[in-house]
């Protein structure tokens, strides 16, 4: 999948696409400068540059299936959306087909069909991944294989009337992660991380004697899991796979920040901590503001766009949630909304300044 680039760095699809975009921007700007009479390359130089770019584009398109024009880019987006829709509908088809026929089968046949479906789909993923570089079909089949495995474990549980167990989430998460790492599929990676986090939540709730169904209402175990997911983005195994560090950071940031909205606002309901609600709530209030601001700051400095977006979205929701929590009961409604409006303007000003500073940098 990777080949060395001219600068010695390992060339991935992302870097190849960046290079193609760079060449396209260069050609457009050069045309503008030439039309404006600012710069005119000698015909021989121009021919050399054009030939070099044409050759490079040809090689990159051959190796990485990069988009060379805006139209191709739009087509790629359409293909990504189509593959997601395809994955969802194919998964639904697999589940509904089994629902339709399983009553007609004896138990051994049910079990055989359930185990065979993910195995057959795994084989299909492998064949598709070998045949096409883009992995669109492979990704559809991989998500369908995961859905078939989820169906497999769930239906075996129903057939044998088993009690629900968190282990199912560990199995699904492990399967999704293995397939994601094998074929470099980011959506499945995100799904695998999410299922593993749910597993941790359920393990914690089981240890605390809380019903498994209520485990997601105690989201504290997700916080350290989110921090670990964030740290995992720096692992070499992730850094050499295109899009994987971003996915780990994205899921890690969401896992680290989203629970804080609930934990700070309703600590007595959502927290495991035995301390008084006011203490726990204040702790999570502070964590929300500090982590939200830190996410934006670090995200900007490190160039992690996904972290900046998640942290900004979180901080806006968090601030409004806290305003509601602190002021709604005692403040006149008109004043409350006036204050929120003022806060929205303040947020715009702050974000505008950060944007302006980025522009200067």
């Amino acid at each position: 999948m990777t080949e060395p680039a001219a600068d010695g760095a390992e060339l991935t699809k992302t870097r190849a696409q960046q290079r193609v975009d760079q060449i396209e921007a260069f050609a457009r700007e050069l045309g503008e400068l030439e039309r404006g009479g600012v710069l005119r390359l000698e015909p021989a130089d121009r021919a050399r540059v054009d030939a070099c770019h044409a050759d490079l584009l040809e090689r990159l398109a051959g190796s990485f299936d990069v988009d060379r024009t805006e139209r191709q880019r739009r087509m790629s987006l359409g293909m990504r959306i189509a593959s997601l829709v395809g994955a969802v509908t194919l998964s639904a088809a697999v589940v509904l087909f089994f629902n339709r026929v399983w009553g007609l089968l004896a138990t051994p046949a049910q079990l055989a069909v359930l185990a065979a479906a993910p195995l057959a789909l795994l084989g299909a993923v492998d064949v598709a991944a070998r045949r096409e570089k883009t992995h669109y079909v492979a990704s559809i089949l991989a998500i369908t294989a995961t859905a078939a495995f989820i169906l497999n474990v769930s239906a075996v549980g129903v057939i044998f009337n088993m009690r629900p167990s968190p282990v199912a989430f560990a199995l699904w998460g492990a399967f999704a992660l293995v397939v994601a790492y094998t074929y470099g599929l980011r959506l499945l990676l995100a799904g695998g991380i999410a299922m593993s986090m749910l597993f941790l939540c359920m393990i914690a709730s089981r240890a605390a004697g809380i019903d498994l169904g209520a485990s997601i209402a105690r989201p504290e175990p997700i916080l350290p899991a989110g921090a670990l997911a964030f740290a995992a983005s720096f692992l070499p195994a992730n850094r050499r796979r295109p899009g994987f560090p971003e996915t780990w950071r994205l899921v890690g940031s969401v896992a680290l920040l989203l629970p804080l909205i609930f934990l700070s606002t309703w600590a007595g309901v959502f927290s495991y901590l035995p301390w008084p609600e006011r203490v726990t709530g204040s702790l999570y209030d502070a964590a929300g503001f500090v982590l939200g601001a830190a996410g934006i700051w670090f995200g900007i400095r490190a160039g992690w766009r996904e972290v900046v977006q998640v942290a900004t979205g979180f901080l806006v929701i968090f601030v409004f949630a806290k305003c509601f929590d602190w002021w709604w009961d005692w403040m006149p409604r008109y004043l409350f909304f006036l204050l929120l409006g003022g806060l929205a303007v303040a947020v715009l000003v702050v974000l505008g300044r950060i944007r302006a500073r980025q522009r200067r940098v």
Partner: protein
Amino acid sequence: MRRYGPWLAAALVVVSNLAAWRVAALNRRGEPEAVLVLTERELQLPEKQAENTALILRLVFDRWRERGDTVVREAGWFDRAKLESIGFDASRPVTAENADYYRTRPPRATYVALEYEGALWLKDLEQARREPQPPFSFTVPESAVQNGVVRLAPRDPFLDSHLTPIDVDNDPAALRARHPDTRAVAVVEATVALRYVGNAGQPPFLAGRVTSVLPAAISVPREWRGVLEGLQTDAGSGTRPPPQREPRFRATVTWGRRLEPWITNVELLQPESAR
């Protein structure tokens, strides 16, 4: 990873299936934990669905259902002490100030003893005979909801499940030791909730409530499907048959070592009028 990844994923599928089959076999090996002969009252038959050919019976146990208009005035056997014994923090005074605290306690996982036609069921039945029958459908008054737990309507011995929760414990072995009759009492995993009962005009109190048992659904093996399929009504036909006044089938349900049930026999029952 590219080379061995597919094999690793396939191994995961195979191993998890083998493990599940092994666990199921272990559950069914040896002396059963309980064997109960239940009827349609306790094993609810679903409607026939074109999109789902599975036949899964729902285990129904008697519980406080929010369909009556009588507010519970006492906790019964599932009181504050019992709640504390299974891990609920009930250390705060039971007052209106702490109502929100108690109302936001998460449900807990524990084990419950379900007794079939036991002493508690008989006691409730006697009480039901003294109380007027409720209409088939009526709404819960708002005041009853606000004041606390809404009690079930007076029991209908023909329609209601005869399976009653009688005890809970975090240790299933201890529960079984207290209720040793394996032909009348099943020990199953359950979800229980803590209820703060406002009890208008009286001191508030805490009461436990078994909200569900696990698993609540019992799949019917293919050999028994034929017996039950004829009793199913079509989903979405627009017409509902009148409520059954007596059960049409009985099934033997066996619970294994892992407290997981399976059906070992199903037979049709003759209506009273035909006997």
